[in-house]
């Protein structure tokens, strides 16, 4: 039993580290450290840098332009990205729709969509959830009715992340109402510029319109945009939902945040002549989280080792989602506790790119509450943590 990297793996780690140090743009890095959002152009620019290096899609097979990396290499890459704070490519194209196109799409669809995803020429968004279909996703109602060489789509999708930037949306739509709800769903790719699509931003409690409602009003979609067979969409989507369940725990990002939390704490007065890092209660809270990350890291490594040994990532990986998000949320809380009065100002625009006004609150203290509020989403999205617990009960405990 050992948790060591091989010589080759260590050399790879060095290569990744060196690349990120020199190629991840310094101004993006300082923005991320100051909790300022990157613009769409900056995100795309960064993804194109990764593309030029050949590292845009670590999880893709080589035949589609992936890296051909081992599980361990993917883990190392994700680790190094997280440690430096470099954003992972936006997942909707690269991690969510692309694997489905690869597995179930036609050759034409693969040739048409995959290269632009890899090169970050096209921005994808997700059309799954609906106002009345959240955790019970299969009860979705958006309909697609076949009309000659087209589907006519009507309905509404919600919690659509960054649809305002998107060129394409992948949707689950209902194509048959007469069968069990899971069996009448199809997987459709829709051009966001099609007539009849409209967007309504949803402003989250941190003040940022990160998600949208998307309305479809008699939107005509060429039938060639159907993935696989009609009414099989649910089975395709389910595969996607369990896809890439390793490297999702956010351990390196958590460690990076705790490092900056500790630094901030040494600079924060406790009001009694010492700093907050000298406060035993506060110190122990941070220690508990560091310990938690340690346990999570090894849980992830154990999953990774078993995947490397050829076993499919089992439902045990739901643990990584649950624990990863819950730890991240606890770190959010501690940032709030540390910032104290400094996080009360609600000036969300100062964390937008290009803000020119006076900054309120020391450093990024005022972002603590915003991050805390925003990140409550983490235990809700991607299959809420309650759904993950259902998966554990059903698939592991046999309940």
């Amino acid at each position, binding site marked *: 039993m050992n948790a060591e*990297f091989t010589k080759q793996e260590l050399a790879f780690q060095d290569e990744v580290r060196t690349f990120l140090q020199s190629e991840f743009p310094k101004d993006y890095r300082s923005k991320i450290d100051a909790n300022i959002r990157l613009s769409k152009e900056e995100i795309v620019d960064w993804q194109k840098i990764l593309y030029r290096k050949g590292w845009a899609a670590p999880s893709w097979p080589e035949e589609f332009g992936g890296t051909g990396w081992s599980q361990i290499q993917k883990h190392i890459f994700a680790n190094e990205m997280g440690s430096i704070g470099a954003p992972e490519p936006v997942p909707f194209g690269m991690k969510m729709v692309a694997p489905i196109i690869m597995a179930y799409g036609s050759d034409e669809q693969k040739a048409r969509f995959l290269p632009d995803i890899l090169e970050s020429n096209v921005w994808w968004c997700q059309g799954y959830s609906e106002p009345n279909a959240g955790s019970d996703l299969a009860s979705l109602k958006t309909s697609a009715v076949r009309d000659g060489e087209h589907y006519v789509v009507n309905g509404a999708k919600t919690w659509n992340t960054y649809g305002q930037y998107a060129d394409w949306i992948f949707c689950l739509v209902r194509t048959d109402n007469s069968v069990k709800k899971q069996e009448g769903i199809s997987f459709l790719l829709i051009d966001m510029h099609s007539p009849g699509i409209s967007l309504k931003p949803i402003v989250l409690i941190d003040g940022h319109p990160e998600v949208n409602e998307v309305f479809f009003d008699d939107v005509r979609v060429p039938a060639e945009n159907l993935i696989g067979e009609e009414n099989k969409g649910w089975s395709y989507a389910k595969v996607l939902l369990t896809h890439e369940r390793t490297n999702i725990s956010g351990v390196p990002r958590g460690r990076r945040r705790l490092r900056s939390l500790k630094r901030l704490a040494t600079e924060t007065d406790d009001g009694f002549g010492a700093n907050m890092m000298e406060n*035993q209660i506060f110190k122990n809270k941070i*220690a508990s989280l*560091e*310990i*938690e990350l340690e346990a999570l890291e090894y849980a992830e490594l154990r999953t990774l080792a078993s995947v490397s040994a050829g076993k499919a990532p089992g439902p045990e990986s739901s643990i990584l989602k649950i624990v990863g998000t819950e730890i991240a949320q606890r770190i959010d809380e501690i940032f709030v506790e540390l910032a104290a009065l400094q996080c009360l100002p609600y000036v969300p625009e100062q964390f937008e790119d290009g803000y020119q006004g006076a900054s309120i609150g020391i450093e990024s203290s005022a972002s603590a509450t915003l991050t805390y509020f925003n990140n409550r989403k983490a235990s809700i999205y991607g299959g809420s943590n309650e759904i*993950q*617990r259902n998966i554990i009960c059903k698939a592991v405990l046999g*309940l």
Partner: protein
Amino acid sequence: MDFSYSEVQQMLQDSVQKFVSKSYDFDTRMKIIASEEGYSKENWQLFAELGWLAVPFSEESGGLGGSVVDLMVMMEEFGKGNLVEPFLASVVLCGGLVSELADEDRKAEKLGRVISGDLMLACAFAEAGSRFNLSKVATSAASNGNNIVINGKKIAVLNGPNADELLVVARESGTETDPDGISVFCVPPATEGVTVRPFTNVDGQKSSEIDFNSVVIPATARLGEKGNALGALEKVADRVIVGLSAEAVGALEVLLRKTVEYSKTRKQFGTSIGTFQALQHRMADMFIECQLARSIVVMAAMKLDSAEGQREKTKAVSAAKSRVGKAIRSVGQESVQIHGGIGVTNELDVGHYFKRVTALEIMFGNTDYHTERFASL
């Protein structure tokens, strides 16, 4: 990176598993606890024959040269069987101290008998005022010519009532928490001035309080250098902590399995209680706790076996004990809760596992202590 067990580790695991399933059911265990010794001498001899007592010791000392990961594999199975035989107390803790401190002759002599199952040891280190601090030693050892005179009161001496020899941690110099000045002495319990008050712990294991009233022993009874035993004590304690954390992991998994099984058979309101989501999610959380506890113990065991520095090792051990302690609280309590009334009765094994893991959470530093130790490093 490889988390699979070696062939030897698998054999060790099989061997303990077989013993537990063949010879250690609930009734047998309760009878052993009710016996005068509180452990089975036959079992102990069998452990010796199976080579288990030799696992932690170097090959030069007649042991099997087992790693901490080996110990972990074994202790996890001990935990599943909830064995009361004093393996950690006599072999890992005391044997470990002898191995760290004693000169070659004494090492060979004592460890040989530990390995053959003929020597039972107990370590008297804790005191009413020491809480979890190993360097807080008020018991004094004063030189008097060629003799040493020991005075003091020890508590929580695991395996004390059955020990052929006591390893007594006493102070030869310095203030009460001085890291220097601490020595370990071999004291036969029959020595004049030694009073052993035996009792059974909540987990069914034998323990004792021991008073030392002007106990005179030869200076040659000292293991190792004068006043220089703390480092060895801490090092051995770290190994014991990983061992008992692994034992807890085994016990917690049994609690989880038994709770899930019970929830599938216990019917209320016309259906098995395992169909209630209010209970399902709590069992999912128990599963998560078990997995995290296991993961961090694996981490700590591998760190102790590695070439890392002492600070990193100590940090890893404290991280593990702290995290396992949390899992003990939640999995232990939840398994009792989900079993309902039967869970708090003496007739079901669940309550006994709960009691054992509760003791494990406290021993060698509880969760808060280790969280703080982790934070201070």
